[in-house]
C-alpha cells in the first residue's frame, strides 16, 4: 500500500491531512488578511498590491489551484471523518450530552460548512465579480471600477470595490457572521491541529491553547475591522466622488 492510501484509509491519517491542510489554510487566512488590511492605507496601496498579484498569473493561478486542492482535501477529510463519527455514535443520550467538551469543538463541521458557503459567495462577489450578487443599490459592475496608479498604469479600483461592497448592509453582516464562525473554527482548529500532529505535551498543551485563542481572536478583529470601518464611514467620500466623476484619475483626486 502506498503512503497516500495508508494515510487516507486510517482515521488518524485523515486527521493529519486535516491538520496540515488546516495549517496551509490558516497561512492563507493570515496572508489574505495582511493584504486586505492595506485598505486602511492610501487607496493606491491596495490597488497596486492587487495589480501586482494579477500581473503574475502563473503565481496567482498556482496559488489558487493549490488553495482549491487544499480546501478539497480539508473538506473531503472532514466529511469522511464526520460521516464515520456519526456512524460510530448512532444514538444520542437523553439525559444531556457532550459533557466536558469545549463548545467550539462541537461546531467544527457547522462552522466549517458555513465558512465554505461564505467563501463561495466571497469568490463570486470579489474575485469573479458577478454583479447580481453584490447587492449594490441600482446595480454596479465592479469591473467598471478602474483607476490609474502613480506610474499611470490603468488598474482595477479594488479599493472602491471593497468600499462599495461593504457598504451593503447584509453583505457586511454575512461577512461578519462568517468571520465569527472562522473565529470559532480557528479557536479549536489551531490547537487541535498541533494535537493531531502529536506536537503537544503537558508543557506545550496550555501554550498551544493560548496561542489558538489569541490568534483566532486577532484574525477575527483584523477581518471584522474592514466592514465595520466601511459601515462607519471609511472611504465614503472616495466612492461618492467616484460617482460624481466616474472617470476620475488619481491625479484629479489629489
Amino acid at each position, binding site marked *: 500500500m502506498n503512503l497516500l492510501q495508508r494515510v487516507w484509509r486510517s*482515521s488518524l491519517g485523515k486527521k493529519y491531512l486535516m491538520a496540515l491542510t488546516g495549517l496551509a489554510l490558516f497561512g492563507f487566512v493570515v496572508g489574505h488578511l495582511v493584504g486586505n488590511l492595506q485598505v486602511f492605507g492610501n487607496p493606491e496601496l491596495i490597488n497596486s498590491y492587487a495589480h501586482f498579484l494579477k500581473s503574475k498569473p502563473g503565481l496567482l493561478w498556482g496559488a489558487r489551484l493549490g488553495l482549491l486542492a487544499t480546501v478539497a482535501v480539508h473538506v473531503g477529510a472532514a466529511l469522511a471523518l464526520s460521516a464515520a*463519527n456519526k456512524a*460510530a455514535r448512532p444514538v444520542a*443520550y437523553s*439525559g444531556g450530552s457532550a459533557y466536558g467538551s469545549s463548545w467550539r469543538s*462541537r461546531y467544527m463541521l457547522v462552522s466549517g460548512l458555513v465558512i465554505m458557503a461564505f467563501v463561495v459567495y466571497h469568490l463570486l462577489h470579489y474575485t469573479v465579480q458577478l454583479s447580481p450578487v453584490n447587492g449594490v443599490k441600482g446595480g454596479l459592475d465592479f469591473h467598471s471600477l478602474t483607476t490609474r496608479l502613480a506610474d499611470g498604469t490603468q488598474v482595477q479600483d479594488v479599493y472602491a470595490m471593497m468600499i462599495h461592497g461593504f457598504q451593503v448592509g447584509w453583505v457586511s453582516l454575512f461577512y461578519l457572521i462568517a468571520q465569527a464562525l472562522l473565529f470559532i473554527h480557528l479557536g479549536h482548529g489551531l490547537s487541535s491541529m498541533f494535537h493531531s500532529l*502529536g506536537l503537544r505535551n503537558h508543557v506545550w498543551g496550555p501554550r498551544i491553547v493560548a496561542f489558538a485563542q489569541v490568534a483566532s481572536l486577532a484574525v477575527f478583529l483584523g477581518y471584522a475591522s474592514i466592514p465595520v470601518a466601511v459601515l462607519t464611514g471609511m472611504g465614503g467620500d472616495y466612492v461618492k466622488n467616484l460617482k460624481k466623476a466616474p472617470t476620475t484619475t488619481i491625479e484629479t483626486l489629489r
Partner: protein
Amino acid sequence: MKVSLKVWRQKNANAAGEFKTYASPELNPNMSFLEMLDVVNEELSNQGEEPIAFGHDCREGICGTCSLVIDGKPHGPHKGVATCQTYMRSFSNGDRIVIEPWRAKAFPIIKDLVCDRKAFDRIQQAGGFISVRTGSAPDANSIPVSKENADLAMDAAQCIGCGACVAACKNASAMLFVSAKVSHLGLMPQGQPERYKRVKAMVDQMDTEGFGACTVTGSCEAVCPKEISLDFIARMNRDYAVALIQGDPKQVVGGGAG
C-alpha cells in the same frame, strides 16, 4: 431521601429498548449509586418485575466493569471516579435521575444497561503488549527506567478499560483508551522494539471496530475515572505518523538452521 429513576430497559441486543420510570424506596445518602440500584432491584424483584441489569464487579473503581451514563454523564456527576464510587449524597431528595448504557456502535447493548466492550480486548490483542516469553526476562534492574518516564507511563497505565471515554465522546472515539495503552508501553524502554508496529496495529484495529475519530473535544478526559490526559492522544498521533511514514517492514524469507 427518595429519587425517581428514568432507566433504559432493553431485553436483549436485538430488541428495541425504552425508558421506564421507577420510584426508589427510602434511601440513605451514604449509599453508593450501585447500592441504590441494588435496593431498587430488590424491590422490583419482590414486585415480580425483572431486576435492572447493570455491569458491576469490584465496586471500588478499579475493575472497569460499571458503565452507567447518569444524567448524560458517563460515571455520574463527580470527576475522577467510576460509577461505583458515586454516592447518593451527590443527589438531592426528589431528583429525577436518567440512567442509560454506554452508547456506541462498537459497544452493542447486551441487555438494559450492560454493553459489550470486547472491541477493547481485540484492540489489545492486535498489539497491546511487549513480546516477552516467560522465563526469558533479564534481571529487572538491568533495564533502568527514568523516574519521569516510569511515572508518566504509570499515569497512562492506570486506565481501567471501562470505556467511559468512548461513551462520552460525541464521535464514540476510543482514542484516549488506545493512546493510554500505546503510551504506557511506548514510554518504557522495554516497549521500544515494537513501538511503531504496536501503534500501527492497535490504531488500525480501532478503526476496524468502528470507533470514531478524535475531534479533541475533551469529553473523554473530563469523564475518565483515572483522569488520563489528552496529551497521550497527541503522543500516539506522533508515533502513528512515524509508523505511517516508515511503512511496513521488509518481508524476510527464513531458512532453517543447520
